[in-house]
């Protein structure tokens, strides 16, 4: 499902974020990506979503070579992914509901169907009844849940999250980790980068450990 083949990513200025990383993630896996700050976790996730392009090697998603995608094809690749970033990146001038609706609006879903899906996604993350609230009125954990609802509303087969619990206290972080676990249990491939592997330990995920841009550890 996700394949990295000798992937190198060098940023302008010469900094090498990834130096020949190779691995495969199969359908339905729950994978936790760990490593110290600057190990290359975020870069790796950005390469999957074509936010960055590799300097060498290949990144494949569902058999498609992401690194060679034409610019026009990138939006369609992203629609097949659920993407949760470290910062929630919610639109603060829109309601919770409108934020979750956004991916469906982008894909041109019929409004009535889109509204049903958005309501279901919010219910899934425990925010039913909070649709009309504005993001800035929510706690950090709730905002992250809105971001997760937005990521799953298109029913993606792959969910990618970049340190989704980084700014949350232990209780909220545990809830978010449990949510990812439940999505994985429903058949979604989940790749989460985190500093706190213990949060996901109960789900017995596969672990990928990055260090200085290289895969330094892997355990099922």
């Amino acid at each position, binding site marked *: 499902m996700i394949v990295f083949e000798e992937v190198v990513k060098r940023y302008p200025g010469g900094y090498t974020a990834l130096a020949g990383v190779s691995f495969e993630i199969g359908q339905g896996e729950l994978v936790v990506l760990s490593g110290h700050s600057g190990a290359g976790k975020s870069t790796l996730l950005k390469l999957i*979503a074509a*936010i960055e392009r590799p300097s060498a090697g290949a990144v494949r998603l569902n058999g498609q070579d992401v690194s060679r995608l034409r*610019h*026009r094809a990138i*939006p*369609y*690749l*992203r*629609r097949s992914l659920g*993407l949760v*970033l470290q910062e929630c*990146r*919610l*639109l603060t001038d829109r309601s919770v509901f409108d934020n979750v609706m*956004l*991916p469906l*609006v*982008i*894909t*041109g879903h*019929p*409004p009535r169907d889109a509204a049903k899906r958005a309501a279901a996604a919010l219910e899934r993350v425990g925010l039913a009844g909070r649709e009309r609230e504005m993001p800035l009125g929510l706690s950090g954990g709730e905002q992250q849940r809105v971001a997760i609802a*937005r990521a799953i509303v*298109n029913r993606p087969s792959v969910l990618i999250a970049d340190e989704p619990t980084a700014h949350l206290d232990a209780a909220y972080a545990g809830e978010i980790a449990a949510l990812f676990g439940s999505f994985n249990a429903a058949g979604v491939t989940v790749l989460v980068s985190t500093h706190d592997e213990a949060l996901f330990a109960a789900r017995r995920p596969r672990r990928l450990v990055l260090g200085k841009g290289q895969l330094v550890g892997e355990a099922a």
Partner: protein
Amino acid sequence: MTQWLYLHARAIALALRRLGGQPVGTLLSALVVGIALSLPAAGYLLLDNVASLARGVSGTPEISVFMAPQSSPAEVAAVEKRLRADGELAGYRYVSRDEALRQLERSGLGDVLGGLAANPLPDAFVITPRSDDPAVYNALHARFVDWPGVAHVQLDSAWVERLHALLRLGQAVVLLLAGLLGLALVIVTFNTIRLQILTQRHEIDVSRLLGATDPFIRRPFYWFGSLQGLLGGLVALAIVWAAVQVLGVPAAQLARAYGAVFTLAGPGVRDSAAIVAFAALLGWLGSAISVRRHLVERLT
């Protein structure tokens, strides 16, 4: 098709929300665009009015052919025969030297000729050509002047020609003004959209991450520019209409002083639609250039 319409409807709604979200800015932009456009629109309207006034005042221009005082009746008859056969003429009127003298006496100037032994006035023909094209007049003039017995040919179309030249000059000035102020409109829209893109940067980036295509991102900006131009066009129309109301009475009085009947007319439905459509088109152009300049470089 339904999805395409839905996406456009959504883009229009978003553009309207952005316009409504900053009412003062929207109003000021519409006023700038409207005032800029009202100048060429008013100029065009003024020319149109002057042209129709000129048509009303001039009637049909004529050519006067004066025979030589010593010309014989045979020569006069020959000229009349040629005029009768000329297909380019709508008509002619023969004014004999005796009739000319009577007309002069009726006008109160008979005393001027009272001391002369004989009538010095020539026989004449007053000719109305079919066309009012100055070029036709000149061609007829050149032809008549060579006919035997003809002493002088006078065109009373010269002032019409001068007026046409003035109108052409006016049209060129209006066109130039429209071009320059249209460019100003494009620049205003370009800058507004640039600021919009800066303030919407976060939303644009988030939308891209969620799979938004370039057209999806651009569409609201195109609509924003077009709607802003359209609002400016409506303001321009309102300014022109107000000017017509204010200037209509004094213009009519001025015309009456010159013995003419004149009503300053506002823009018709077609002209009004053209002004608003032109403004919207320029708004779209400004936004398209701005989006191309400021959004494409942000593609990731």
